[in-house]
């Protein structure tokens, strides 16, 4: 895939963050890693280090949701979509070494940025779910937009903190999807 300079800088910055963390990564590091000059990095990120670090968090965050989107492509039903999405989200956060390292060592830097991203994501996930809800049909009196919003929130909540759920266990996830997540929205769910 064709990679523009911006993308190249972000990928290089991400590599630096993986090695040294968010607070120790500098513009110079990113430029050297990308094989570009400092001036070029500043041209794409005029706000400097702060802007670059914000951008790399956003970029990785969107990549994560991009992979999530690919993972659920072709799901035959709303139930399958949610099951596949939750299982993938649980698994890939656990396996995401850079995320795990940064959230452990620099939560004071990562979490405020992540909160900003998450707040934008509620709307995106909700918009993605709306056609599936129309296709599936909702219970009488249920507002599709409102239901999509609540579903999006609960998906993000489960991703951030699975609580007592094991998202790697297909039996648990199937139950979660058909009860807490969907019972009220689609009404009278038929098992299986």
């Amino acid at each position, binding site marked *: 895939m064709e990679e523009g300079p911006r993308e190249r800088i972000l990928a290089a910055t991400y590599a630096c963050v993986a090695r040294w963390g968010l607070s120790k990564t500098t513009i110079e590091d990113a430029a050297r890693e990308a094989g570009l000059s400092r001036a070029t990095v500043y041209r794409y990120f005029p706000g400097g280090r702060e802007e670059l670090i914000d951008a790399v968090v956003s970029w990785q965050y969107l990549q994560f949701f991009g992979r999530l989107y690919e993972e659920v492509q072709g799901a035959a039903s709303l139930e399958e979509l949610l099951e596949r999405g939750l299982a993938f989200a649980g*698994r890939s956060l*656990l396996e995401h070494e850079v995320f*795990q*390292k940064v*959230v*452990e060592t620099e*939560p*004071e*830097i990562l*979490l*405020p940025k*992540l*909160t900003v991203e*998450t*707040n934008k994501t*509620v709307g995106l996930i909700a918009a993605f779910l709306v056609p599936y809800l129309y296709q599936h049909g909702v*219970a009488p*009196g*249920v507002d599709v937009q*409102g*239901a999509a*919003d*609540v579903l999006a*929130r*609960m998906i*993000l*909540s*489960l991703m*951030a*903190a*699975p*609580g*007592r*759920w*094991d998202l*790697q*266990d*297909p*039996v*648990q996830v199937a*139950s979660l999807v*058909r*009860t*807490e997540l969907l*019972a*009220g*929205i689609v*009404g009278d*769910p038929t*098992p299986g």
Partner: protein
Amino acid sequence: MTPTRLELVMGGAGQGGEPVSPQRIRIVDGALRCLARQGISKTTLDDVAREASCSRATVYRVFPGGKDGVLAAVADTEVARLFSAVAVKMGEADDLEDVLVAGMTEAATRISGHEALTYLLEFEPGVILPRLAFGHMDDLLASSSRFIAPFLARWLDPAQATRIAEWASRLVLSYLACPADDVDLTSSDQVRSLVRVFILPAIGAIQAEGSSGAVVLDTTTTRHQHQPTATRGITS
């Protein structure tokens, strides 16, 4: 089961079993007013002493841990106050829908109206969020759902009660962490419609599932509790 730190506090143990003295409460309340006005990093023990109308030496005597000790006591006290306020409201309600509505509305009203928390989330998110997110949110959900579940026990079996308590906690936390323009959980009418559409039908579905012997989750503990996020295993 291992109790979470919050539950040790709720159990009345306090910090190291210390009795809760009026002086301790005065210092905690003084610190709360400082936090609401100027946040954590700008608040000194002198500020706290002045606000509590006592000497700096007294603050140190009551909290040998200094500022960290005071802050820990503030967090513990505020969680305990939140849980007791929610308990009072849930205790007054007498059907399942009302219990959920009362508890969720009270929690949302108390948390969103909390001046110190509001200040910290706005101006010092880097200090406060690491105490609330990911692994800490698992702990928070575990404490909250174990605390709420007994109030649902008149209508639900323990496993169902814990699931529903966790779900209600998630809903409240989500709207507090990420407010929506058109949903206000401090309004009991709005909470009631959420409960009717998104929680009560789930209860029916869980009960139907239970009778067919489907999923039984561990109700005594959170799977991941006290495991560092990075080492959570995949067990299935």
